C-alpha cells in the first residue's frame, strides 16, 4: 500500500491486489482507508526510486529496439517498427516482453498498436492485445474516455457531457470538439483512433547505424567479448564504406543476462571506419575503466552503435607524408583520449585578451580546429621573454615590504635586478565590480631565478604570478 500527498491531503497512490479486493482504491484519502481497515500497512511513495526503476526497465528494453521512450511516471513506449519480425511477429514479441518482465517479478500491462496513444489506452484496458496498424479505431472505440489520458478536468467534462466512451466522443462533430476541448485534445483523439501517428521521443538519440549479436548462451570470457566486438566492427565498417561515411562516436552496449546494461563509448577526432583503429580504441578504453566491465553471469546481447557519422572526403591510400603524419597524430590523440578522457589531452588556442592568464584557452585536442586568431608575442626582437613559461593559475601572495628582498613560500629572496612596471588594466566590461590594474615587474634574485610579480590596489598587495626560465 503506497500513500502520497496530493492536494494537501494524504491519498492512496498505489494499492496491491489484496487491498483492491477489500475495497480500497487509488485516490482515496488515507484517513478513510484507515477507518475501513485500522491495521493497514502504509508506505510513503518514493518517486525518484520509482523513476530509477522505470529507467532501469527502459535500459533493459533497449535490447528489443533502440527507440524506447519514458512516458509519464508509469509508462514506457517502445517503437518496434521494423524489428518485430526478429522476435517472431508482433504478438509473439509482446508476449515475450511481458513474460520476461513477469518472470523478473513485475506486475505489468502491455499492448501493441499502430500509434502510441492507442497502445497506451489498450494497455490499460485490454492487457496483452496486439493489433495491426489500421485496426485501432475498432479496438479503441469501446474503451472509456479515461483511456485517452486527457487529464482529470477534461475527462470530468466529457463524463458530465454524457460522453462515456471514446467512440461516443469520436462521434461528435470535430468543430464542436475543437471549440470545447481545443485542438490538442482532438489530436490525441485522432492518434488514438489511428488517423494520425506521432513519432515517440526516444530517451537516447537513436544510432545512425547499429549491429548486434545475440547469444543463446551468455558470454563471459574476455576473448569472446573482444572477438564479438571485432566482428561487429568489421561488419559496421563495410556498411559505412558503402555509404561513404566514417564514425566520430561509437558506443558498445553490453546487455547482461540479469538485466543490467553497460554502455562504453569512444570518440574519434576525425571520421574513421578502420576496424583496426576502432578495435584498438575500444581495447584502450576497456583496459582503463575505473570500474571494469563486469560480465556477471554473462552478456546475452552485445550491440555496437554509431552515434555520430561524418562523410569521409579523402578516399583510398594517401601518399602525402604530411597527411599521414596528421592522421598518425590524431590516432595518438584518440588513443590517449580513450585512455585518459578528452579533458586530459589538450591543445592551446589563442584568446583575444591582454589579461595574462586568459590569453589562451586549453581545449580538448580531439575537438581542436585551427583558430582564426593568431598568437601574439609581447616580447620584441632580441628581447628577453616578457611572459613566463610557468604561470600560476592562482597568483600567490608574497611579502614585498622592502625593495631589497621579498618572501615567497616562506623563503626570503634577495632582489638583484628589477625591471618594470608593465601596467595591465583589467577589463572593466567583464567584471561587475571594478578590478584594480596590475603593475607587473620582472625580478631576478641572487641565484639567477627570475620571477614575475605584480602589485595591485592601495595599499598595494604583491603577488607572484609566474616564474621565468
Amino acid at each position, binding site marked *: 500500500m503506497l500513500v502520497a500527498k496530493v492536494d494537501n491531503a494524504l491519498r492512496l497512490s498505489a494499492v496491491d491486489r489484496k487491498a483492491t479486493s477489500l475495497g480500497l482504491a487509488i485516490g482515496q484519502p488515507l484517513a478513510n482507508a484507515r477507518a475501513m481497515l485500522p491495521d493497514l500497512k502504509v508506505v510513503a511513495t518514493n518517486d525518484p526510486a520509482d523513476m530509477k526503476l522505470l529507467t532501469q526497465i527502459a535500459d533493459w528494453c533497449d535490447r528489443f529496439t533502440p527507440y524506447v521512450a519514458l512516458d509519464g511516471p508509469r509508462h514506457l513506449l517502445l517503437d518496434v517498427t521494423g524489428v518485430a519480425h526478429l522476435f517472431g511477429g508482433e504478438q509473439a514479441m509482446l508476449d515475450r516482453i511481458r513474460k520476461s518482465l513477469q518472470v523478473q517479478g513485475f506486475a505489468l500491462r502491455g499492448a501493441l498498436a499502430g500509434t502510441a496513444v492507442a497502445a497506451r489506452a489498450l494497455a490499460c484496458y485490454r492487457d496483452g492485445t496486439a493489433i495491426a496498424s489500421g485496426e485501432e479505431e475498432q479496438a479503441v472505440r469501446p474503451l472509456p474516455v479515461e483511456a485517452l489520458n486527457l487529464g482529470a478536468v477534461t475527462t470530468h467534462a466529457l463524463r458530465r457531457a454524457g460522453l462515456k466512451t471514446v467512440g461516443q466522443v469520436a462521434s461528435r462533430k470535430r468543430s464542436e470538439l475543437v471549440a470545447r476541448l481545443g485542438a490538442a485534445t482532438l489530436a490525441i483523439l485522432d492518434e488514438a483512433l489511428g488517423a494520425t501517428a506521432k513519432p515517440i521521443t526516444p530517451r537516447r538519440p537513436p544510432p545512425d547505424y547499429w549491429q548486434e549479436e545475440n547469444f543463446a548462451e551468455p558470454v563471459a570470457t574476455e576473448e569472446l567479448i573482444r572477438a564479438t566486438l571485432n566482428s561487429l566492427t568489421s561488419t559496421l565498417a563495410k556498411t559505412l564504406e558503402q555509404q561513404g561515411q566514417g564514425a566520430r562516436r561509437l558506443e558498445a552496449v553490453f546487455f547482461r543476462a540479469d538485466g543490467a546494461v553497460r554502455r562504453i563509448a569512444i570518440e574519434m577526432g576525425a571520421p574513421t571506419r578502420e576496424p583496426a583503429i576502432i578495435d584498438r580504441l575500444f581495447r584502450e578504453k576497456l583496459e582503463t575503466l575505473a570500474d571494469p566491465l563486469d560480465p556477471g553471469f554473462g552478456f546475452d546481447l552485445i550491440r555496437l552503435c554509431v552515434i555520430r557519422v561524418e562523410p569521409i572526403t579523402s578516399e583510398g591510400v594517401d601518399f602525402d607524408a604530411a597527411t*599521414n*603524419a*596528421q592522421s*598518425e*597524430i590524431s*590516432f*595518438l*590523440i584518440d*588513443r*590517449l583520449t580513450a*585512455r*585518459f578522457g578528452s579533458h*586530459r*589531452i*589538450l*591543445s*592551446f588556442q*589563442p584568446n583575444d585578451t591582454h589579461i*595574462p592568464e586568459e*590569453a*589562451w584557452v*586549453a581545449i580538448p*585536442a580531439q575537438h581542436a580546429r*585551427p583558430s582564426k586568431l593568431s*598568437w601574439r*608575442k*609581447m*616580447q620584441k*626582437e*632580441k*628581447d*628577453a*621573454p*616578457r*611572459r*613566463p*613559461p*610557468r*604561470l*600560476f*593559475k592562482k597568483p600567490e601572495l608574497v611579502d614585498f615590504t622592502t625593495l631589497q628582498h621579498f618572501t615567497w613560500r616562506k*623563503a626570503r629572496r634577495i632582489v*638583484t*635586478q628589477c*625591471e618594470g612596471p608593465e601596467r595591465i588594466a583589467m577589463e572593466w566590461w567583464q567584471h561587475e565590480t571594478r578590478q584594480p590594474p596590475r603593475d607587473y615587474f*620582472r625580478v*631576478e634574485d*641572487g*641565484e*639567477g*631565478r*627570475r620571477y614575475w610579480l605584480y602589485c595591485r590596489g592601495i595599499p598595494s598587495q604583491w603577488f607572484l604570478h*609566474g*616564474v*621565468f*626560465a
Partner: protein
Amino acid sequence: MKNLDKTVCTPEQTLCMSGPPSDICPRRLKNLETLKVLFNKPEFKQSSTRTPLGHGDIDFCLKGGIQHGVLHEVFAVTGHEASATGFVAGLAARVAADKPLLWIRPDFSAQEFGELSPIGLLELGLDPIRIFLLGVANASDGLRAAKDALSCGALGAVVIEISGNPKILDLLASRRLTLAASQKSVTAFLLRFGAQPGASAAETRWLVRGSASQAQGEDWGHPVFKVELVRNRHGKTGLWFMEWNCDGRIFQSSTADHSAVVSASAN
C-alpha cells in the same frame, strides 16, 4: 610490457622468433624497422641522428649534438624548476624542429611549479599550435602514455615531467622508454623535479639551474642556464653556462663566458 622484454634478446633467439610459430606479438614483427632493432641486440641499435645545440663545447662533448631517438634526463636543482622547463623546452625545440611535441605533466606539477603557459613557450621560440599537453594523475600514467606516444613517428619529441622519485620509475622503466624511443626515433625527455638521480638507461643526464643575467637595466637578456652534464654515455661530461636565443631557437655560450669544461671520463 612482456613483448618489450622479449625484444631484448640475442640474435639466435631472434631468428627462432621470426619463424611462423612465434609467441611474440606479430604486429611488432611486421615492419623492417623493428626487425633491425631485434637483430642489433644486445645493445639495440640506436639512431645516430644528432641535432647540434649551438654551443661549441657541448656539441663537441656530445659528438655533434643531442641524439635523437633516445632518452635524455634533465634534473632541476630545487627551486630552479622553471629554468629546467626552459632548458627542456629549448632542447625539445631543437630536436623536434617543425614536428609536434607532446608534453606530459602530472596535475601536481601544475599546482606546485605553475601551469605551462603557451604564451611563455611561444616567447621561448616554440609554436603553441604544435604543442599537445597531457595532464596525468600520477607517474605511472605518465610513463604509460609516454611509451604509447613514443610509438607515434609523427611526433618530434615527448617531454615527461615527473616530480619526486616514484618507485615505478626504475632502471627497467627507463630501459623501456629508451627502447620505445628508438623504435620510431622519437626523442624522450624526462624532466625531473625534486628528484635524486638514480640508475637509468638515459643517454645523457643534465643538472640545470638558472643563472644571473649579465645585462643590466631594461635589456634583460636571454635566459641563462648553468648546466652540468653529469652523465654522457658516449662522451665527456662538463659544466657550462648556456644562453638560449629565443629568436634563433638555438643555444649559445653565455656572453660572460665563465664556463670551464670539467672533463671526466665517460662511464
